[in-house]
């Protein structure tokens, strides 16, 4: 086990990158603490798989360093780094039995036969595949195949990190949930550092203690699921996490106060001095309420999504979503919107620009 440090990491798939747009990873500095459960979250093409392959050693970064417990491993091969990785599609050795599949990584490292037998038994037990140990792996269903792939990742107890690259892509929805909770449970039992790559916010938020959100080759925020939800550091995080995502509204800022459609908006704290660029107000639909006074808006749509109602209202040309628990206005009504000040912030060029409420 080890603490993993990424320092000034940059990567380009081109041989002679010109501008920042040629880089799949622009500049990454992240510490992954020993034993943590991390999720790496971002839309397709944001560079998360590239980052994963750099940590595992399948890819050597153009610039920067990867350190395991302070030791530079940037140019070491995957087996020298002693890591495990589970891929998007199940990778199993067709001609072997399930038992031989699970034993394979240990056998290659010359582990004693009785140690192998006990480790394989343990892992099979955890994954609930004991009854199929002697079957040919090629005949299994996709979810069982993926379990075996995970098992091969977890069977070594000395790995520095176990990485999962969107491992539930090929799994049926009803089994996804089961496998995810299994993983969470396994993390608590084996205490290995785990990095879980996904573009699905539910998967990330349920699995991880810490979520690393990436966009266009950059890390935009690292935090617990609660932090990401309550205080997004970037409008992208606010928008990407949550359903519906955070309302991001154009704002005019002058003399320390923010206005939206001419109305002054109360904020969580003071706007940072020196903040400049394009200003926006961000407020999650959960913190938009309807009252007798406030910003006038016209209700365009009301959707009942089960536990609550999602109201879509227009303020001028701008759409504002609100989540309401009880009675809601009907379509066409004119209402007044209020933003809860403790959860209302100003963003400058996408980045948060208000001080936290003390």
């Amino acid at each position, binding site marked *: 086990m080890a603490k993993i440090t990424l320092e000034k990491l940059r990567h380009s798939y081109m041989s002679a990158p010109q501008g920042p747009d040629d880089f799949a990873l622009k500049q990454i500095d992240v510490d992954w603490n020993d034993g943590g459960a991390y999720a790496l979250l971002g839309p397709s093409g944001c560079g998360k798989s590239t980052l994963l392959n750099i940590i595992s050693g399948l890819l050597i970064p153009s610039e920067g360093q990867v350190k395991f417990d302070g030791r530079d491993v940037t140019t070491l091969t*995957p087996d020298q780094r002693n890591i495990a990785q589970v891929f998007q*599609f199940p990778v199993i*050795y067709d001609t072997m039995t399930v038992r031989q599949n699970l034993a*394979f990584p240990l056998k*290659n490292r010359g582990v004693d036969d009785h140690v192998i037998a006990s480790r394989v038994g343990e892992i099979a037990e955890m994954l609930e595949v004991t009854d199929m140990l002697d079957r040919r792996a090629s005949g299994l269903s996709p979810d069982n195949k993926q379990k075996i*792939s995970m098992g091969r990742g977890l069977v070594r107890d000395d790995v520095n990190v176990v990485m999962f690259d969107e491992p539930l892509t090929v799994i049926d929805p009803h089994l996804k949930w089961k496998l995810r909770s299994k993983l969470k449970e396994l993390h608590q039992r084996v205490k290995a550092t785990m990095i879980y790559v996904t573009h699905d916010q539910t998967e990330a938020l349920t699995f991880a203690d810490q979520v690393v959100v990436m966009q266009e080759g950059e890390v935009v925020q690292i935090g617990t699921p609660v932090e990401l939800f309550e205080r997004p550091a970037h409008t992208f995080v606010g928008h990407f996490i949550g359903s519906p995502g955070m309302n991001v509204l154009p704002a005019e800022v002058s003399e320390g106060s923010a206005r939206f459609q001419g109305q002054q908006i109360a904020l969580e704290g003071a706007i940072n001095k020196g903040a400049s660029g394009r200003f926006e107000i961000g407020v999650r639909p959960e913190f938009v309420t309807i009252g007798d006074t406030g910003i006038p808006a016209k209700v365009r749509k009301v959707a009942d999504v089960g536990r609550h109602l999602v109201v879509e209202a227009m303020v001028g040309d701008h759409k504002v979503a609100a989540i309401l628990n009880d009675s809601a206005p009907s379509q066409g009504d004119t209402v007044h919107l209020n933003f809860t000040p403790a959860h209302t912030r100003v963003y400058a060029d996408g980045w948060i620009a208000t001080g936290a409420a003390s």
Partner: protein
Amino acid sequence: MKTENQKAWLFVLPVLALVAFNALIPMMTVVNYSVQETFGNNQFFWEGLTWFEQILRSERFHAALGRQFMFTALILVIEVPLGIAIALSMPRSGPWVPVCLVLMALPMLIPWNVVGAMWNIFTLPDIGLMGYFVNHVLGITYDMTQNPFAAWVTIITMDVWHWTSLVVLLSYAGLVSIPDAYYQAAKIDGASNWSVFRYIQLPKMKNVLTIAILLRFMDSFNIYTEPFVLTGGGPGNSTTLLSIDLVKIALGQFDLGPAAAMSLIYFAITLFVSWLFYTLMTKDDLN
């Protein structure tokens, strides 16, 4: 799932008609000849299974069959591993790959008698490139019209030259269809190069290799034109393979009865061995 539909026969009908015309009618002619004796003038006499008995007991047939099996076995033992090895050493992608594949496929597109003629020219002792090189640079006496061993070396080399590319192309097709994740997982699992070959590449190539081995077996077992043009079956009878012997009997001696009986026995052996190969190679898939 496929749906049951007897009208599908209509789609198959043209194929059936054309192949049956070419296969069944000549086959019946052959069967007909195989049980009769003729002295020309379209007069035929019933002979029953005499020809079959005669062929199966004849030393000449045994010798030709033995040479045929020897040839086919050597071909498979050389071409299959060599083809796999070449396919493994090819890059998985790159601008040179199509160029290599085209060059490799070239020998397969040359008419078979040209292949024979070409190797004849190539191996002529004093004026052929290979013949000159072996005789005058290496100093080994080499003349396939005199020495049976030289003749065998030549027809084997020619067939390796002609058909190894088929194994290369098929194996390569199997190899490039393996997703990168398999190689990455193997790296992470600490697998050796041998393990990668044994547990990933070989199993994934199994289907195409089955096709390769079957095609190579059938075609080498039925080979006629190339060795006929190259050695004419000689020197002596040393390279008279089954087909060559058959044509000698049928057209050279015009012994239609024995030739027909021999054809049927020959066909039955080809069919049986192909079936055996196929069953052995796909046995694992059934359980």
